[in-house]
């Protein structure tokens, strides 16, 4: 019989070596698999390395800065349109130069340019006398501010003085109403009432109710600070003293029903009703489709104003080049 056993047993040592070699290869392959998982997770979770969101962040800053300058220039009473445009042009040059200096300290090249023909003209309707109610020049309490038309209105702000004394209390019959009235179609209108509520558990409050054809009435309440003396109500910006008011912006229901100014009406004229139930200043800017020729007399003559401007924006870093036009119309309602 062949002596197979001794042949096998003499070779056992090399089996140990082969097994060790196989185990070594297995460990290296497993390490390779783990590394590829780590690398995949690294690639997948990388943030914005090129810095493209900086271009967009700064675009928003430029839009806000130019908007601030535009609002300030429009608020200068008694200047005509060419003065305003000249003022705005110099302001935008300053903003571009100063902004470029700030951004250059962060390694970016930014330029903002405005051609003065790139603008929409408009009309600003306002009252600056804070101790006067909102009635017309001839003291009518229900009056029409603009002609009927399909126009846009932006930056509608009301600074209501002495709210606890002048505003009509909640549930009263004649609170102040701001109406965007579609006269061509019967009773279709967007309206907002402002009332005073002295019975809140936490103190005194301002109640704003908004109603338009596509939705029932919604209201929001804002608590007044003691002895504040005034409340800033931003109708198109949907805020009261800086706090947002959903009744003027968008509801959080299934449809996201918008409640913005002028929602639900296409052609309208702006009216004040019960204007003796409110006191303070107001201001809004309408675009060039808004006219006041057929309206009642305003306490202060409407001014020419700039409705919107479009500026050229350029943003360069070593990795990103971004150019676009920015339309600036501060306080415009989303369409």
């Amino acid at each position, binding site marked *: 019989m062949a002596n197979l056993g*001794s042949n096998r*047993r*003499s070779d*056992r*040592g*090399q089996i*140990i*070596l082969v*097994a*060790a*070699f196989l*185990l*070594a*290869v297995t*460990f*290296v392959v*497993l*390490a*390779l698999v*783990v*590394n590829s998982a*780590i*690398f995949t*997770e*690294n690639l997948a*979770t*990388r*943030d914005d390395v090129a810095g493209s969101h900086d271009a967009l*962040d*700064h675009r*928003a*800053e430029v839009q*806000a*800065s*130019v908007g*601030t*300058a535009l609002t*300030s*220039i429009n*608020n*200068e009473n008694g200047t005509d349109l060419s003065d305003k445009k000249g*003022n*705005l042009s*110099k*302001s935008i040059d*300053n*903003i571009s130069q*100063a*902004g470029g*200096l*700030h951004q250059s*300290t*962060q390694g970016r090249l930014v330029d903002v340019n405005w051609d003065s023909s790139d603008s929409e003209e408009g009309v600003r309707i306002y009252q600056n006398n804070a101790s006067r109610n909102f009635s017309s020049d001839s003291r009518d309490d229900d009056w029409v501010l603009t002609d009927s038309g399909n126009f846009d209105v932006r930056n509608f702000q009301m600074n209501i003085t002495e709210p606890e004394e002048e505003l009509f209390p909640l549930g009263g019959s004649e609170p102040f109403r701001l109406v965007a009235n579609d006269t061509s179609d019967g009773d279709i209108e967007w309206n907002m009432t402002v009332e005073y509520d002295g019975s809140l558990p936490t103190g005194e409050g301002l109640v704003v109710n908004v109603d338009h054809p596509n939705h029932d009435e919604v209201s929001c309440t804002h608590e007044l600070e003691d002895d504040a003396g005034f409340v800033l109500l931003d109708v198109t910006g949907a*805020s009261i003293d*800086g706090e947002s008011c959903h009744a003027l912006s968008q509801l959080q229901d299934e449809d996201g029903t918008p409640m913005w100014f002028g929602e639900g009406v296409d052609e309208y004229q702006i009216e004040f009703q019960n204007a003796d139930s409110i006191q303070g200043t107001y201001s809004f800017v309408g675009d060039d489709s808004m006219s006041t020729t057929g309206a009642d007399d305003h306490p202060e003559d409407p001014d020419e104003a700039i409705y919107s401007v479009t500026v050229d924006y350029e943003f360069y870093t070593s990795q990103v080049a971004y150019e676009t036009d920015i339309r600036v119309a501060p306080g415009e309602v989303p369409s």
Partner: protein
Amino acid sequence: MVTSGENAAGDTRGQALTLEALTAAILILAAIGFALQMTAVTPLSASTSSQHVENQLQSSSQGVLGSAADSGALHEAVLFWNTTEQEFHNVSGDEQFYRSGAPSNDFGNATDQVFSDRNVAYNVFVHYQTEDGVETQQMVRQGEPSDHAVSASRTIELTDDHRIVKKDGSLNQTLSELDDDEFYIPQQDEDNAHYNLVRVEVVAWRI
């Protein structure tokens, strides 16, 4: 049958077997050492110094500045200046800026909520334009930033009709009515509505 003089694999194979066993052991140990050293640790691996932690802090700083700018709180914070004492309102100590605490305005409340409750310290700087270039006024100083500090900034425009804010939050004179030495930010150009363009920078780090 195995005779007594023979062992399992033959007389002369002992040293060779030992050598092979040793080689096998060294091979396995080397392979294990190599595999463990090869495993990559990247800045995005989960750890307390992960890049994600810094990115998150940067995003929340940017968010605080953005929402403060939108609601007007950032303008109020920059204009919250005591023109007689030449310092920010309610500052303790001799400096012009806030130490240890947040400013007593809406911007300070926002940064307090976002940062202080989460063990994040921050410094706030206001960079403004002068004839000689960009100068800096410190608003908040809470210490020296660590190596992992992040910076977020927001640019805001000041116009001639913005008003200085008094200690109780009410408004005072407009910027164009102020004298040169009453406010730390100078007027850049007198013949238009632009007053100055200011960059507010927040440097935040975990403690």
